[in-house]
């Protein structure tokens, strides 16, 4: 035998060097690392998105001055004279790069400029859309989770059972119903025929109900489905079986093991849906006259209101980053395992 020293070290009771090593000295703790990475992303996304918007809007067909004038004076009072006035007023004749540089310089001082159409400060103009979008998204999500998660949990308890099959039908049904149709149906039912809820408007708590329900109906089915799949998968996992044979009762197993682990999946999923809700609900906003970000964006693009487009796009992009951050941090809080980046050979 070759002389290989028998270095089979006794398995020390406290293995200081075995297992994945603790974080190296000098590196940041996971939460700080997530925050730092996301902060960097926020800055780069802001620059990128605003520049992209600017470049695209500059290259859209049609004379910007006319568009802005149409926004300022109303659709049937826009004239060449007013467009000329707008052009002179806003300095649209200046080279594009100068306009962009000016926007960047202002941004560095946290000044988003003024709307070309209304002349009001962009920050002021966006405050309502951002808060109402968040409000609608948060309410819809809360509703969807409140309904979907328990239903999914119950369905997972008896896979293939009545409730399980019902959620499948529910998902298919809601997916086949476009949100604008659903919204109309809800207005017809709850507003016109029953008169329980206001159809449109913004301001009082009752206003948010119908649009939120419109969004939540489809989402709740999805959440129920995801919860069901996750919980059913967890119920077959080793640690849930082990917890049961340890003598824990069903409810204790659910509370101590299933919920938190299901939360890891659900939080990520809810986050992804939140993004869709915040950016993609322009239909519901339009139908319910909800003053959200999507509608603001549609109007701003229609009128070529560049600062508003840029600011709204940046706001949306930052919301994306913010939600991703919250999801990351919540994920870290729920599941301490390190996430290795997939190494590509």
């Amino acid at each position, binding site marked *: 035998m070759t002389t290989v020293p028998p270095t089979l070290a006794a398995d020390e009771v406290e293995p200081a060097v075995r297992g994945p090593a603790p974080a190296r000295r000098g590196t940041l703790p996971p939460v700080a690392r997530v925050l730092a990475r996301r902060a960097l992303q926020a800055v780069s996304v802001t620059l990128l998105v605003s520049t992209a918007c600017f470049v695209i809007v500059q290259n859209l067909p049609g004379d910007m001055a006319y568009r802005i004038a149409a926004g300022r004076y109303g659709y049937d009072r826009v004239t060449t004279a007013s467009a000329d006035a707008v052009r002179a007023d806003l300095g649209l004749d200046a080279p594009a790069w100068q306009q962009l540089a000016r926007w960047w310089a202002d941004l560095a001082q946290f000044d988003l400029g003024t709307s070309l159409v209304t002349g009001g400060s962009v920050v002021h103009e966006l405050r309502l859309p951002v808060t109402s979008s968040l409000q609608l998204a948060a309410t819809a999500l809360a509703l969807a989770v409140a309904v979907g998660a328990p239903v999914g949990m119950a369905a997972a308890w008896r896979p293939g059972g009545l409730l399980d099959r019902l959620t499948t039908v529910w998902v298919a049904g809601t997916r086949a119903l476009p949100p604008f*149709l659903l919204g*109309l149906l809800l207005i017809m039912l709850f507003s016109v025929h029953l008169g329980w809820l206001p159809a449109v408007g913004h301001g009082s708590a009752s206003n948010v109900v119908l649009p939120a329900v419109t969004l939540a109906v489809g989402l709740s089915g999805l959440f129920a489905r995801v919860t069901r*799949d996750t919980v059913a998968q967890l119920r077959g996992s080793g640690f849930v079986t082990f917890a049961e044979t340890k003598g824990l009762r069903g409810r204790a197993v659910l509370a101590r093991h299933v919920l938190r682990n299901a939360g890891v999946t659900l939080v990520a999923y809810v986050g992804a849906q939140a993004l869709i809700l915040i950016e993609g609900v322009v239909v519901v906003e339009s139908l319910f006259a909800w003053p959200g970000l999507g509608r603001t964006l549609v109007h701003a693009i229609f009128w070529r209101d560049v600062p508003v487009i840029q600011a709204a796009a940046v706001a949306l992009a930052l919301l994306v980053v913010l939600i991703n951050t919250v999801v990351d941090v919540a994920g870290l809080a729920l599941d301490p395992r390190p996430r290795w980046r997939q190494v*590509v*050979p």
Partner: protein
Amino acid sequence: MSTATTTVPAHWPRWQRLRRLSPTQRCAAAALVLLGLFAVAGAWVWPDPAAQDLSRFLEPPSLAEPLGRDHLGRSVAGRLASATRLSLATAVACVATAVVAGALAGVLAAWRGGIVDTVLHGLSEAFVALPALLVVLLVSAMSGGGLWTLYAGLALAQWVEYFRVVRARSALVLSGPAVEAAGLLQLGPLHVLRRHLWPDLRPLLTTMATFGVGTSVLALSTLGFVGVGIAPPTPELGLMITEAFPYYDEAPWMSLAPALVLATVLVGLLGLRGKESVS
């Protein structure tokens, strides 16, 4: 659902695999095929979906006009066939473009790694942060109501999804032992593509693509509803629903028909996917 999950031996010929479709899948496929036939045949029966006869506005359904006429006296059935054709064709084209572009970029990024991966991944991150709505709106603003820009906008908004999934999945496959073994056997990139990546990605991509077609049809009609979609009088499902809505009690057939077609497309695609796989 149960039969949908049974594994079909991979060596079975294609038609036999078709036979193993679940009843749900068969119904869904039949509904979609019927809809497709209606859409194609409609082109012969009603050659001009924009032909008006103002004197016959809101005419109720009859034998000659199975779905009645709309507020401009146009044949609802003819418009519906044309709209279905347009919606399905555009959606399929969008998804096909997005799948091809996304999958190619994803495989490329996962395979080459390094600078290629960094650039493509950075690009996709930017697209993720850029709201999909904004992409579609901006692109469709480039030429109002043009079908091409709408197609480009939707494809542009969707490729990222495929890129991300394919990249992650390919990285997993490529770093796995099977590909390592193929490397040791010196079987070459074509083998890896054909035997490892494609079989692994195909079910994923088909599932995502059927879902994507549904999403695209919905997105098209949604844009029509908001008023930035295809310009009238080109018939489009969302636009038809919007146009018909004011007449919902006077001429219910007008709004019901496109809504039903939309629902059929979505349910059909959903049913075709067979086993439920959200997320």
